[in-house]
């Protein structure tokens, strides 16, 4: 395993997320077997690996969608292993999905308002009009991702790249300590990819949010991550800077290849 410390990580800061010895099997298939890593505040960490390497399983264990067979997940010093997604969210984990997940019968603003209502006052009030709640806070979040002008539009009619921004705003609504992004740029045009990840990196640095994302586009990975973690067949095979991982012979063999068709240089 190549463990090259990135220059920025040398400024020792506290790990927001610590995954320790995570393991999960499905009917005898070991999807993830003993994976450990950590993510620090304000850092962008990419999780890459071949299809079926266990990235999504790993993500779902961190986000609460799956319960690990073994190991623990620690968020800012507190164990969150096996908690339900809605509890994990309350403790400060924002999440975006590979296939955008928004509420299509609501406007862009209402999507963010929904998250704020859930965070601030709960959803059990059956009488008070919801549209009037947290308008300013919702607009501030939308401004942060550059969607303020489209606040009144229906989510169902937005362009794909804009939907991704809305999802980011929703994920930021609970002032998360950790942001989990599953293939954030899948299905986007190359230029949009760069823009979205640059935006995410800026917000992460500003708000000191730890970001963990999976990604297939190596241009995005090498341009926007402080650190890269590589999984193969459920095991962690490399954890280090983009440059170190790119040179790693094992990573080249199982994942990167010669770089002839991927755009890797």
């Amino acid at each position, binding site marked *: 395993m190549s463990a090259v410390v990135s220059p920025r990580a040398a400024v020792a800061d506290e790990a927001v997320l610590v995954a320790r010895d995570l393991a999960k099997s499905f009917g005898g298939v070991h999807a993830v077997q003993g994976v450990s890593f950590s993510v620090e505040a304000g850092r962008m960490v990419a999780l890459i690996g071949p*299809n*079926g390497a266990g990235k999504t399983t790993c993500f779902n264990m961190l986000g609460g969608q799956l319960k690990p067979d073994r190991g623990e997940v620690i968020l800012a010093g507190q164990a969150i292993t096996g908690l339900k997604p809605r509890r994990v969210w309350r403790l400060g984990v924002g999440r975006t999905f590979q296939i955008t997940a928004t509420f299509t019968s609501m406007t862009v603003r209402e999507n963010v308002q929904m998250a704020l209502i859930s965070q601030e006052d709960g959803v059990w009030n059956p009488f008070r009009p919801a549209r009037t709640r947290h308008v300013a806070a919702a607009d501030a979040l939308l401004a942060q991702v550059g969607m303020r002008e489209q606040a009144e539009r229906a989510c169902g009619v937005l362009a794909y790249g804009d939907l991704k921004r809305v999802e980011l705003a929703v994920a930021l609504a609970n002032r998360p300590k950790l942001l989990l992004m599953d293939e954030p740029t899948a299905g986007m*045009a190359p230029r949009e990819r760069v823009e979205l990840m640059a935006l995410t990196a800026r917000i992460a640095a500003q708000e000191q949010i730890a970001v963990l994302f999976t990604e297939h586009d190596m241009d995005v990975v090498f341009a926007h991550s402080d650190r890269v973690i590589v999984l193969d067949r459920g095991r962690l095979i490399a954890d280090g800077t983009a440059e170190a991982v790119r040179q790693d012979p094992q990573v080249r063999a199982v994942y990167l*290849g010669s770089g002839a*068709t*991927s755009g890797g240089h």
Partner: protein
Amino acid sequence: MSALLEISGLDAYYGRAHILQGVGFGMGRGEVLALMGRNGAGKSTTMKAVMGLVPPARGEIRFDGQRIEGREPFEIARIGIGYVPEERRIFSELSVMENLSVGQRPPREGVPHWTPERLFALFPNLGRMRDRPGGAMSGGEQQMLTIARTLMGNPRLVLLDEPSEGLAPVIVEEMAKTILALKGEGLSILLSEQNLHFAGNVADRAAIIEKGIIRFTGTMAELKADEAIRAQYLSV
């Protein structure tokens, strides 16, 4: 030599959205043509329209001189067009052999006749997991299985929708080799692609589509030479 596939003036809608606006291009026998463009430009819709999965509102699609627009997907498959969809869509609860058997059609004159054994020679991985359910395979293996399944119909033309999307770089390289091998067998291939490196490695010609309109057709070499076109439509 007449064109194998000739599309002209093709219009298609999703609901009220006008996705294809007079798409037209042709491709010859034994050729690999890359249909390139951004997400949502109309690449997949063009393929689905050829396959009869999206009804074209207007326009002509000729296959081997025969008009096929408005026909049922199964009829289009039977005259020799194979379709490999973007999201793989293998039958996850069927085994590898069963997946292949769904695609099986009688031999066709003038094109290679595919059997499971011949396919396993091309995709050795699949041969080692004949009884494994499709759902228990990795993404790369599933992608190979969809291609193999389509080949079981002994097609003359294969539509490959974004074969490299979401695959590890090392699998993408393997995919490129497979496409070249199929071309070597005399198969014609229409593939949609966003990845210029990949398309450059496998395709003879390219067509660029943007907002439902074809903006460029030419050889791959011409596209590589034309930086302005690449910058405008492929944003690399």
